[in-house]
């Protein structure tokens, strides 16, 4: 069997294995969310100021909340199997459309964050490991410790105070300039401009993780026999680091990044809240307080699917980085 056919079979097998997992996640989420007191109608009626019990009963009937739980679950499962995530009665919109609208801002923030965090983390980890116990190493370690230990919302607010209020370099929040409503390339630049502070805030936290991980991983690889062998062969130190050690040291970083991509897709409530970034995290957060269960279940389902997919991708990247790891 050829290599690519084996890989394809492996992917298919993994996908089939994922089905019952995803189904179990959906069912568990469904019952978990039912345990919260109050429902969407309570929230809507509470916000409206007052509403008659008849009106609330009507709303419950309209939302299908008057049905027994197993019926509600069956209806939901049936919808999910036909790729219909249901309707958000709070937003008066299909759940899939709500999620899609938030996907682009979420992806923008997450992809730039991961790239920045992994890129700089690997770089800093590398610098720290190659200059072990020098001032470079100490400075980077202290930097990583501080950024890791500082609460995200505080970092975000301080960046706003310094770079938006005092220096006026970046907007405080949002994704677009709402007095101008730019079009075309101006809009792209405007969005990028708005993206800077949230990306830096969110990546500072992950940057620390990757720096520490990369440093430790590099040091571990240094002690391996193959490094000694390479040195004995007379390979230059530079070549040892960049060709041999770096490649192996990246494995745990990739593992970590894979785990985090899944989590990051769910959004970051804190950064989205501080920077008023229209991501999935805030959507989920607000849906929880509004008891908008269809929407929440939709977001959870999406996250579950992404985690499954990302894990699969990571396993495939492993086999490229380290040919000893085989799929199958």
């Amino acid at each position, binding site marked *: 069997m050829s290599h690519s056919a084996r890989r394809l079979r492996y992917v298919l097998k993994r996908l089939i294995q994922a089905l019952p997992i995803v189904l179990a996640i959906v069912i568990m989420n469904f019952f978990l969310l039912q345990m919260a007191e109050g429902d969407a109608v*309570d929230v809507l009626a509470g*916000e409206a100021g007052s509403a008659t*019990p008849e009106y609330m009963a009507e709303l419950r009937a309209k939302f299908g909340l008057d049905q027994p739980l197993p019926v509600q679950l069956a209806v939901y499962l049936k919808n999910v199997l036909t790729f219909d995530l249901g309707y958000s009665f709070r937003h008066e919109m299909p759940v899939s459309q709500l999620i899609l609208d938030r996907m682009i801002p979420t992806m923008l923030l997450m992809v730039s964050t991961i790239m920045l965090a992994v890129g700089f983390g690997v770089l800093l980890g590398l610098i720290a490991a190659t200059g072990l116990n020098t001032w470079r190493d100490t400075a980077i370690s202290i930097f990583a410790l501080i950024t890791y230990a500082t609460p995200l*919302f505080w970092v975000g607010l301080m960046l706003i105070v310094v770079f*938006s209020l005092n220096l006026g370099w970046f907007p405080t929040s949002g994704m677009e300039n*709402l007095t101008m409503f730019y079009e075309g390339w101006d809009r792209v630049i405007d969005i990028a401009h708005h993206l800077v502070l949230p990306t830096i805030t969110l990546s500072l936290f992950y940057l620390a993780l990757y720096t520490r991980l990369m440093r430790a991983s590099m040091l571990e690889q240094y002690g391996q026999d193959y490094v000694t062998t390479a040195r004995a062969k007379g390979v230059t130190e530079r070549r040892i680091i960049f060709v041999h050690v770096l490649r192996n040291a990246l494995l745990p970083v990739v593992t970590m990044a894979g785990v985090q991509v899944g989590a990051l897709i769910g959004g970051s409530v804190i950064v989205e809240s501080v920077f008023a970034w229209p991501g999935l995290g805030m959507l989920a957060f607000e849906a929880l*307080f509004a*008891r908008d269960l269809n929407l929440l279940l939709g977001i959870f389902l999406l996250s579950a699917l992404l985690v499954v997919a990302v894990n699969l991708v990571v396993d495939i990247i492993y086999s490229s980085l380290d040919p000893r790891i085989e799929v199958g």
Partner: protein
Amino acid sequence: MRHLCKFALAAVAMSAALASGAAMAQKAGGNLVFIVQPEPPSLAGYLSTSGPIGLVAPKIYEGLFDYDNDLKIAPALAESYDVSDDGKTVTFKLQQGVTWHDGEPFTSADVEFTVMEVLKKVHPRGPNSFREVTSIDTPDEYTAVFNLAKAAPYMLSALSAYESPMVPKHLLEGQDPRNAELGNNPVGTGPFKFVEWKKGQYIRLEKNENYWKEGLPYLDRIVGRFIPDASTRTAAMESGEVMYGAFGAIPNIDAVRLRDTDGFSVTTEGYATINPMALIEFDTTEPPFDNPALRKAISYALDRQFLIDNIWFGYGKPATSALSSTFAGPGLYKDPMPNYVPTADIEEAIKLLDEAGITPDENGVRAKAVLDLIPYGEDWRRAGEYMKQALVPIGIELELRYEDVPTWLKRVYHNYDFAMNVNYFYQLADPVLGVHRHYGTDQIRQGTHFVNSTRYPNPKLDELLVAGAQEPDAAKRGEIYGEIQSILAEDMPVLNLFEMEFLTVYNDKLKGIDVSGLGAYGSFAEAWIDD
């Protein structure tokens, strides 16, 4: 003698404003970005009185009336009105030449449809505001005659764009207003047209070029922005990205700082039609708060001024009665009532408890209770922490509970599983609209939010409430409400804490936002930016 009222035409009022000083010459053009927080569930102001809807919808829809800062009626879609002697016929003359944003003309048929088919049926407060309306005649396109079963003087206080928006009959007829497309794509007669709603980001409105008020609005565009974090809202205000934030969008702690900063102003105007009152509701059916003496003792032991000064940064007025002192305007508020003190009187509180035979146990505890706190922000939590301490000297031991909104609503208004609940109510522009719901026996409606959760029954009071709603004579009405206030001060099923003052923070470049008593719920037709 018929009571007749004619308004000055809007154009006249406008030219007066223009004449008031060349330095204030309004400039047309410009974009206003203001804070809308939280994001509204829809833009159907005819279905929900939810605060954030009120910030946006009245720029798109209009009511029959507007109100000034003294709650006096100003013309909007109704050019004039006329109330018959017996108060049972109210005739509105409508503005001519008004069109909906889709080009259809606005006529008396829209008024009839809005009140009879929408507000009376699906609006949360509409069935109450328009309860006496039996039918509406439309003798011609610009006349709407409301036929009432009984006089309903309070109805004229409930006709603003926020409380009773006029909606297009041609877009709602034959549909269930609750499901109609109009909720997310509003079409009104107001100064601004709906353009776009980016969920999680903003709502964008553009100038209505065909607005019936000549020369208005000044602004080209209004954008309502959603910013979840309070500190970021303040930063956005400081950086000039947003120019207006009302209903405490900028927390008091930052508002007082901005007030003292050049370029920003803070006002408490624009909340007269809402009249918010902070209060405590008691479960009057079960011990310990079935005993009025305990409720009154708490009223004496709490230092209202301390709460205002330290938690709300000086914004607020100690409550002195079941009614807000703003009702002194229409002559309904009676002088300060007994059992209401601005600063704590511990001795009096202890005296009351001793007389009622509520004695301390060996630990000095006379009563224990859980205090539920309205989950609308940190201020209420601080208030709860203060109360817990403040009631220790009179031997009342409190445990604080702070839940999320749905859980709290269910607990208080559905399960009645509470003893003492800190809350706030909008008393609105008339006690019939905002206060009656808290006390009437007919308002003990399990499962309905913000009504009589104390389950306090008093047949005598019920009679007075009915009489107060129907009395057309202002002086007699004042006497009835005086009596109501005396009874409530004595029984105190609800303990009013203080008349809240919400803060509006705005950039000094923004002008013309103070012309309507509706404040942030106003149309912003006359708002303009002075660069």
